[in-house]
């Protein structure tokens, strides 16, 4: 007996399926277990990781600024100046360098950074001259 009807029940989802799914698997290649091998699980994992990437763009900026602030503080403390004193010293002298540049100076040009730190030596944490 030849059953010819059953062949009609096979649904072709379309010729593009392999490449459509491959786009997802490429993004999930570094994941663990079924998350990288099974499409229905991978698609959820990939969507979540893309969401994290979108949110992360905002956090990257916050984290970088924090890193620069920490570096400036560390550099200034070496000269006995707190970050607030350092900042006030720059403001009083109308030096408008941003944190990125200041952090770079602290690393690559320590002499320049020291001279900037000395500007804030005489100030207290409220921006007034000490004593």
């Amino acid at each position: 007996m030849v059953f010819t009807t059953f062949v009609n029940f096979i649904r072709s989802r379309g010729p593009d399926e392999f490449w459509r799914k491959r786009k997802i698997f490429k993004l999930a290649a570094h994941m663990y277990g079924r998350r990288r091998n099974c499409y229905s699980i991978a698609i959820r994992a990939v969507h979540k990781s893309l969401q994290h990437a979108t949110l992360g763009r905002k956090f990257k900026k916050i984290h970088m600024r924090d890193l620069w602030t920490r570096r400036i503080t560390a550099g200034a403390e070496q000269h006995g100046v707190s970050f607030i004193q350092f900042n006030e010293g720059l403001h009083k002298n109308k030096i408008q360098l941003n944190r990125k540049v200041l952090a770079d100076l602290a690393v690559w040009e320590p002499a320049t950074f020291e001279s900037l730190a000395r500007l804030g030596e005489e100030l207290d944490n409220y921006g007034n001259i000490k004593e």
Partner: protein
Amino acid sequence: MANNSLFLKSGFIKVPLQNGVGRFIGQLQRVTIKFCKSHGNSRGVREFIENDLVDFAKQNPGVVVYVKPRRHRGPSIVGEYLNGERNWKPAGNLSREEIFKWINLMTVQNGETEAFRYRKHIRTKMPSIQGVWTPFTHRNLPNNLITYPNEELGEVLHKEQTATERLLEIAMQQNLESDTSKEQQKD
């Protein structure tokens, strides 16, 4: 997202500055043109091959040109460079002039020209002029040359008065007072 699963590659600024300082050496090694002999989107490529290709090959003797007629697929131009990179360009529905321009652009390019994210927007060979910060930059270096034991540094810090010394001091004062009072009494 892990860096290896991102489609937008990232890297530092490439600076091929040596080429052209003395003599300019074209970096394009070979150009492969794939097209269909009958399909409509290869028309521009076919016109280019018929009219401009031989002139292009004569003008660029250092570039090898391959022409590959392939049925039932879209046309493409692939430039391969001396550093091993490949620049694939789809040539479907491009006019003859556009293909001429793209192929001539490939002759002055260096490799893959895909957009990529700069990790740093600066590239220098001399990032530091004053000297990079080290943990010893703002430290007093002579401290490193001291030999121990050192009398000066071995002194006790914060010498406060001990209880015994205080008692002796009090006793001395009392003795003095009693001496003076005895003298006064005698007088």
